């Protein structure tokens, strides 16, 4: 839609002045022009937001989730419950990139009402604060965030140096699997290592994915502890020299290889063997054709600390050596070239003198290309906003929908798996009077994923938490009544 508008603009701009203006704009600043284009789409998507909030947006589910019934511990838990959700910040982005921070709601009804009147293009979710954010000024310094889901943000833009298909905000089926790779690595790690169970994965609506870790323990992590978890999962540390050198913070055991030396941290070992290595060899190399691109091939070579191996690989590349079809008909040339490198490294290592760096270079190459690249800053602070699930991406019109982590390969962001807002509204119209109309649209599937992969389990946990706290409260009442005042406690500072 944008392109057509742009073309008409160009064609109708025949008057000299217009042409001149247009020219000026191009010379002046490409960026500005892009901005202009994007804005047009914003307006377009924006006009659909009102009906979207009115008919389709699942504010009930969102609100129910963020209320964490059972999260509070008081005897008057109903009142507390309301206070808990009331202290949660919702940030709206209104038309024209105006941020309205510190909105808060006591119930779903008031949220819905506000959505109707303000019609935000985007909703971000902030932390639960110590007090109602609306009254924050009255509390001064004691107003601060007290809890918030542990969140992760992974953007395809951070993979530009390893993608040959797209760049920046663009994604395509050839690079999207990088995101699946990230889901697989992180989801297992969060569950197995940290014991988290309630993780909501969502497609951001444009070029990446988010994870919301909602276990009570995760929500209560301090900023330092969040940073630690984020760093635990951060391996790739950026590129130097125009994408030449890729840095990782891998560390390998020292000592003799014979007794376990050379291994990485167990989490990384598992990620490597179960996810990264197969993905790299079978999916990523053929899709991105890295071993056919001079630039990427050279980057890989530069990470091999052995001249013999490099020479062999270069020979294959320069003579354009191909796998012989007779032996294995469907071998991809990229995979094949990689396997030749692997073999060359192994041969070299069998030699008399061991080059320790060489033993780990294959791991370093694979990690630096396909290991999840977190935007760690997002995870590190409780007080950080993140786009709410189910809201519409203002630039693509796609809805931010849940992904089933067990089955992430099946999620196709180019299909109705990630429905566009105008499609949803059309579908909705079709089912019109039906009271289950929303369920019959593509949103139905998204809600089913939400329920099955996330909410159903969280709901049970909330219930249990509630019971536990009620019991504890009862006990406390008992204890309190026969407790003597403790003199020492007076001085407790």
């Amino acid at each position, binding site marked *: 839609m944008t392109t057509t508008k742009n073309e008409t603009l160009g064609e109708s701009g025949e008057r000299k002045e217009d042409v001149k203006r247009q020219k000026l704009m191009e010379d002046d600043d490409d960026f500005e022009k892009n901005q202009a284009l994007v804005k047009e789409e914003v307006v377009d998507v924006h006009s659909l937001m009102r009906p979207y909030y009115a008919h389709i947006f699942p504010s009930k589910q969102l609100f129910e989730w963020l209320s964490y019934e059972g999260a509070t511990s008081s005897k008057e838990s109903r009142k507390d419950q309301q206070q808990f959700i009331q202290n949660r910040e919702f940030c709206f982005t209104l038309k024209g990139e105006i941020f309205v921070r510190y909105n808060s709601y006591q119930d779903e009804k008031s949220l819905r009402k506000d959505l109707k009147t303000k019609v935000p293009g985007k909703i971000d979710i902030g932390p639960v604060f110590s007090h109602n954010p609306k009254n924050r*000024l009255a509390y001064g310094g004691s107003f601060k965030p007290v809890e918030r889901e542990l969140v992760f943000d992974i953007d395809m833009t951070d993979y530009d140096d390893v993608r040959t298909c797209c760049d920046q905000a663009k994604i395509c089926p050839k690079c999207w699997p990088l995101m699946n790779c990230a889901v697989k690595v992180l989801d297992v790690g969060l569950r197995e290592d940290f014991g988290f169970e309630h993780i909501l994965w969502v497609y951001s*609506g444009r070029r990446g994915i988010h994870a919301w870790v909602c276990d009570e323990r995760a929500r209560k992590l301090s900023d330092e502890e969040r940073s630690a978890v984020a760093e635990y999962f951060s391996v790739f540390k950026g590129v130097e020299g125009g994408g030449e050198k890729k840095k990782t913070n891998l560390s390998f055991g020292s000592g003799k290889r014979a007794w376990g030396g050379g*291994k990485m941290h167990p989490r990384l070992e598992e990620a490597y063997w179960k996810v990264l290595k197969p993905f790299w060899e079978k999916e990523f190399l053929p899709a991105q054709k890295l071993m056919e691109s001079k630039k990427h091939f050279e980057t890989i070579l530069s990470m091999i600390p052995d001249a013999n191996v490099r020479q062999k690989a270069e020979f294959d590349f320069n003579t354009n050596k191909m796998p012989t079809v007779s032996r294995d008909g469907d071998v991809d040339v990229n995979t094949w070239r990689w396997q030749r490198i692997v073999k060359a490294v192994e041969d070299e290592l069998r030699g008399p003198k061991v080059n320790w760096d060489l033993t780990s270079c294959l791991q370093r190459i694979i990690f630096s290309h396909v290991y999840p690249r977190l935007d760690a800053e997002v995870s590190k602070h409780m007080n950080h906003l993140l786009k709410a699930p189910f809201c519409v991406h203002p630039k693509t019109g796609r809805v931010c929908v849940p992904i089933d982590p067990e089955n992430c390969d099946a999620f196709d962001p180019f299909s109705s798996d990630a429905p566009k807002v105008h499609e949803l509204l059309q579908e909705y119209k079709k089912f019109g009077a039906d009271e289950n109309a929303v369920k019959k649209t593509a949103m139905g599937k998204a809600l089913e994923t939400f329920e099955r992969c996330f909410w159903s389990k969280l709901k049970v946990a909330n219930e249990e938490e509630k019971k536990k706290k009620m019991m504890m409260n009862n006990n406390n009442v008992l204890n309190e009544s026969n407790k003597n005042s403790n003199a020492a406690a007076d001085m407790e*500072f």
Partner: protein
Amino acid sequence: MLTEKEKREAKQLDRESYNVSLYDQPPNEDIKLEEFEKYALDRVRLLTAIENALSSGKKPEELQELIKEKTKSLKLEPKSIADEVSHYALRLAFCRTESLRRQFLTSEVQLFKARFREMKGADKAKFIEHELDYNSMDSKEFEKLKDELMDVLCQARSTGPRGKDREQWMMSEHKRSKYYKVKFENVYQLVKMRDVLVKKGFAYVHESAVDAIVMTEFRAKLSKNLGLAAKRWNAFVESDERARLVPVINSLRTKELGRSDYGSDNANGGPSGTGIVLNKELQRLAEESFPLCAKNLFKAVKHEHHLRHEGRRQLQLYLKGIGLPLEEALVFFKTEFTKKPGCNNEKFEKDYAYGVRHSYGKEGKRVDYTPHSCMKCIAANPSKGEYHGCPFKTFSEEALGAALSQMKIEPSKVTDIVKKAKNKHYQLACSDVFEAVHGGEFIEGGLHHPNQYYEQSRKVLNPKTNEDSDGKEKQAVPTPPQQKEEQTAAAAAAPKVVAA
């Protein structure tokens, strides 16, 4: 099976066997008020000694020795009543402002560290299990995780020897008894480095990594408790039976540790300062009363009409501390900076005005930043073309000698002072300068802050508070306009929004 009571008693016995306290139980004994005061003052002496040792750059071993000695001479043996009581007394005395808390925390952590280091292996293990609630691993779990634990120990960067010796070290260290099972949150530093095995929310920590953790734990707990103490102070003051302690505690703070943090109270003509200062007075005051660090920056900005970031920061905060209002500071820096070719008013507004306002807590996080202490200045490492830091450290011997001679200090004293500076006793050297230019008057309680230097100097040179002398002038100073609260505050607290 031990009963609860037996367990408690066993724990109590263990507690007595190791010589370090986390101060998690307030002392329960009755003591006399005089004792209370004496213990508290003794601890102030101990902590001050630690602080001074730190700022004069003592090595860890020297510090360790010093702490041992002082502890003995002041009779503050770990876990004695005196030790416990004095710690709690000082918590109260130091809890009231951020900078006092930081000061207290730093010295207490050093004290704890020194005591922890003195502890023997077996005692250490008992301490870890009882005080920190670390659990040892059971053998079934150890069998299951043995190999992974080994892999982690092998690749961990933060502990154990490197290179050839590591193999030997690991052979002897990789035992069940050497591992502890703790919530991962408690050892987040190790988690962050991936230097620990993490399973289902628990981290399996090797003994060799515990020391560092204990320190952070101690620091975190104390820091939190200080915050709590500050909050509860009022309630404390009101309770009748405590009321008699209050004057003692207050005097601890004001007399012995009377360290104002030189915040913007001064720039607002607040109580702790010596009144408001105006631009036209700066030149004179710089000559009369600035310590060398501030003099140096002041001279640099007058000559070069520019200062790099760190220098601007140090000078701005210092000037705020002596009572220069924001408006005056803006005028001062603008006048100087725009004298430099290539810097017009517009550039100043764009590049530098923000920084000035920031220093005054009117931008960014709106924190009322405190002026740099001597320690902070000394810690700085200015490069060529920068003038911040402490000149006693940064100047060459010749340059320092020249600067002192310019201040009309006699040659024999100059030699002395330069020698002190060369031996890294920067603050002592600076105090000597004070003495030399103030007719033998010296700085009460030792020099620790450039603004303290200034205030003492004003007191000596101008015993009447300048409040009566030029009160009228002061009223001519425009009061800073109130911020347009709502909008600007929201804009300043720029939301960290993640674009998807």
